[in-house]
C-alpha cells in the first residue's frame, strides 16, 4: 500500500495565499473526492501537489510513502507515481500524441527497457477503444485543436497508459456531456484497484454517480472544512453548501475571507 499525505499545506500564487493549511491523507485502493464551490482552493491543491511553476508552497508538507514530494522536480514527482489530469492541458504543436505518450512511458523505464513499439500500439489501441476515441487522435498533435471533451479523454488516456500510483483529476467533468462523462468514468473505474489511489476534484456531484468515492471532503477558504463518506456528496447534491457554512459560521466560503 502507498500513501500520499498532505499536512498543513499553505500555498501562494503571485503573493496571494490560497491554501491555508490543508490536511489530507490518501491511500492506494481509495478514491477521494474534494468538493466545494468555486474559488475555494481545490484546483490550487491539485497544481501545488504536481508542482505547477506559478504556485509557491510556503508551509506544510506533501509526502509519498514518506518521500518529500515538494523537494522533487515535476518530472520526478511523475516518476514517483503522481499524475494530474489537468483542467487546461497545454497544446504542443508538432508533437504527436503517440510520440509524446511513448516518451512519457519510456521516461519511467531504464535505458534498454523501453516499451516495444508493438506492445505500445496494442495498449494504446485498447485504451483508446475503452475511451471511445477515434484512432486518428494518436497521430494528431498533442491537444492541438482538440475540443474540450477530446482533451479530457486524452488526459484519461494518459492516465491509463502511464498507470500512476496516485491520480488527481482536476475538474475532469467540467464541460462534458453525460455520454462523455460515462466514458471518462469507465476509464477511471478500470484503474481502480490495490495499486491505485485517486483524488477527484469537482464541484458537481454528478461525476460521483459514476465513480463512487470512498471519502468526500469539502473545501472552503483554502482548507478542508468537512470530511465524510459518499453520503456527504449526496447531501451536498440535495441541500447545497449553505448548511455547512451555517454550521461553521462561514459567510463567504471563497479564499481571502476569514471565518
Amino acid at each position, binding site marked *: 500500500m502507498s500513501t500520499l499525505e498532505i499536512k498543513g499545506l499553505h500555498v501562494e500564487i503571485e503573493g496571494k495565499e490560497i491554501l491555508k493549511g490543508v490536511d489530507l491523507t490518501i491511500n492506494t485502493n481509495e478514491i477521494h473526492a474534494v468538493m466545494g464551490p468555486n474559488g475555494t482552493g481545490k484546483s490550487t491543491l491539485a497544481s501545488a501537489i*504536481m508542482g505547477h511553476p506559478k504556485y509557491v508552497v510556503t508551509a506544510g508538507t506533501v509526502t509519498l510513502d514518506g518521500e518529500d514530494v515538494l523537494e522533487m*522536480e*515535476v518530472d520526478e514527482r511523475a516518476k514517483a507515481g503522481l499524475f494530474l489530469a489537468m483542467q487546461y492541458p497545454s497544446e504542443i504543436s508538432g508533437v504527436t500524441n503517440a510520440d509524446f505518450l511513448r516518451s512519457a512511458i519510456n521516461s519511467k523505464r531504464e535505458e534498454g527497457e523501453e516499451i516495444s513499439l508493438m506492445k505500445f500500439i496494442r495498449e494504446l489501441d485498447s485504451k483508446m477503444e475503452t475511451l471511445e476515441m477515434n484512432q486518428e487522435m494518436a497521430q494528431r498533435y498533442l491537444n492541438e485543436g482538440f475540443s474540450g471533451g477530446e482533451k479530457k479523454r486524452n488526459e484519461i488516456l494518459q492516465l491509463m497508459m502511464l498507470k500512476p500510483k496516485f491520480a488527481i483529476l482536476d475538474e475532469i467533468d467540467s464541460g462534458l456531456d453525460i455520454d462523455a462523462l460515462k466514458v471518462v468514468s469507465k476509464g477511471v473505474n478500470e484503474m481502480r484497484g490495490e495499486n491505485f489511489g485517486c483524488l477527484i476534484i469537482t464541484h458537481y456531484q454528478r461525476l460521483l454517480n459514476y465513480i463512487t468515492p470512498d471519502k468526500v471532503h469539502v473545501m472552503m477558504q483554502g482548507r478542508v472544512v468537512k470530511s465524510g463518506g459518499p453520503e456527504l456528496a449526496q447531501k451536498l447534491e440535495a441541500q447545497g453548501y449553505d448548511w455547512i457554512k451555517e454550521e461553521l459560521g462561514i459567510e463567504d466560503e471563497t479564499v481571502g475571507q476569514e471565518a
Partner: protein
Amino acid sequence: MTVETKLALTGEDVRSYSESNREPEWLAAKRSEAYQLAETLQLPKPDKTKIQNWNFTEFPVHATKDEPLTGLAELPQEARALIDIENQKNIYVQRNNTPAYLKLSDELKEQGVILTDIFTAAREHSDLLQKYFMNDAVKVDEHKLTALHTAFMNGGVFVYVPKGVEVKEPVQVLFLHEGEDVSLFNHAIIVAEDNSSLTYVENYLSLSKDSKGLVNIISEVIAKDGAKITYGAVDVLAEGFTSYINRRGVAGRDATIEWAIGMMNDCDTIYENVTHLVGDGSVGHSKSVLVGRGDQKQNVTAKTVHWGKEAEGYILQHGVMKDEASTIFNGIGKIEHGASKSDAVQESRVLMLSEKARGDANPILLIDEDDVTAGHAASVGRVDPLQLYYLMSRGISRVDAERLIVHGFLAPVVSQLPIEGVKKQLSEVIERKVR
C-alpha cells in the same frame, strides 16, 4: 582537387571561364554585362541587418575541379544517408563546382523531362535556358549580389518538365561542399510547363568543417498555368562561408508553388524566398525553419507578391535561436492593385533558447487593393513554462521536454519533406544544433 582560377576575378577571367565551359554567346555576354554591373551596383539592404562589412566579393578560388563519381555508393556516409540509393531514380550530385553524378529514368527522358547540370543545359538546351535564366524570377541588375552571381556562376542544375507531364517520384539534387577554399555560385532553374507537376528536393551539405569561401545561390522556379512544384531544401553549410541564398518562384494561372526550406547553415546568411503569384488563382506556400547558434548572423525574408486575382499566399517561418546567434525574420505579404480576392496570411515565430540570442519577427502587409483578406501572427519568446510543466508532469525530463517542444516547433518543414533520408537528416541536424 586542382585549382583552376585564382583570387579576384577580372572581366577576362570571367570570359575565359565561360569559354572553358563552351557556353553559348548569349550567356557569355550576360556574364560580361553582369560583371560590369557588379562593379557599380550596391549590396541589397535586408531590413535591420547591416551587411556593408560582410565579405561578398573576395574568395580564394573561383572553380575547383573534382573527380566525378562512378556510383552513389562512393559518396561519404553523411551524403549517402540522404539518398535511397536503390530506389532513387532521378538524381544529380555536384561536388564543389564539378557535376559529379547524374541519373534520370528512361521513362522521364521519353516524356521529355530534362535533368542536367547547368553547363550542359547551356550547351544542349541553350534556347530553353536563355528563356528562363535571370529573366522572369530574378534580374541581373537587382543589386551587386545578383550581378556577381551571374558573372561568377560556377555550378547548378536545370530541371524541365514538359506540358502535362506529372513527375511522380521526387527529383533529388545534392550539392556537396568539400574543402576550405571552395565557393558556390550555383544556379538552379526549375521549370514546370502547363499542367505538369514536379517535386524537387535539394540538399546543400558541407563535408568540411570550415570555409573561407562565398555562397551566392539563386534558384528560379517557374510554374506555368495549372502546374504544381513542390520544392524542398535543406541547407547545412559550414561556418566561415558568407552566404546569400535567393530562392524565387513565379506561379502562373492556377499554379501552385510549395516551399519547405530547412535553414540549418552554420554561417552568416542572407535568405530570400519570394513567390510571385502572377496568375489568377495561383497559390504559394512558403514554409521555412531555421536554427541559429554560435555568433551566427542571419536575415530571412519570405515574401508573397499577389498580382493575379484570387491568389493565395501563405508564409510560415519558425526560428530557434541559441547562444549569441541573431536572426531577423521578415514576412511580407504584398497585394498589388487588381489582385482582388487575394488572401495573404503569414505566421512568424521565434523561440529563444538563450538570454544572449536575438530574434526579431517583422510581419509586413503591403496592400494596394480593397477586396482582399490578409492576416499575420508573430511572436518571439522563450519555451512556454506551462508546456514544459505539462510534459514534465508526465515524467519527461526538462531536457527531453525542451527537445520535444523544439522539434515540434520545427516540424512544419520536417513533415513536408518528401524524401525519407532528407527528412531524417533534417531532424538529426536540428537535434545536433539545439543540443
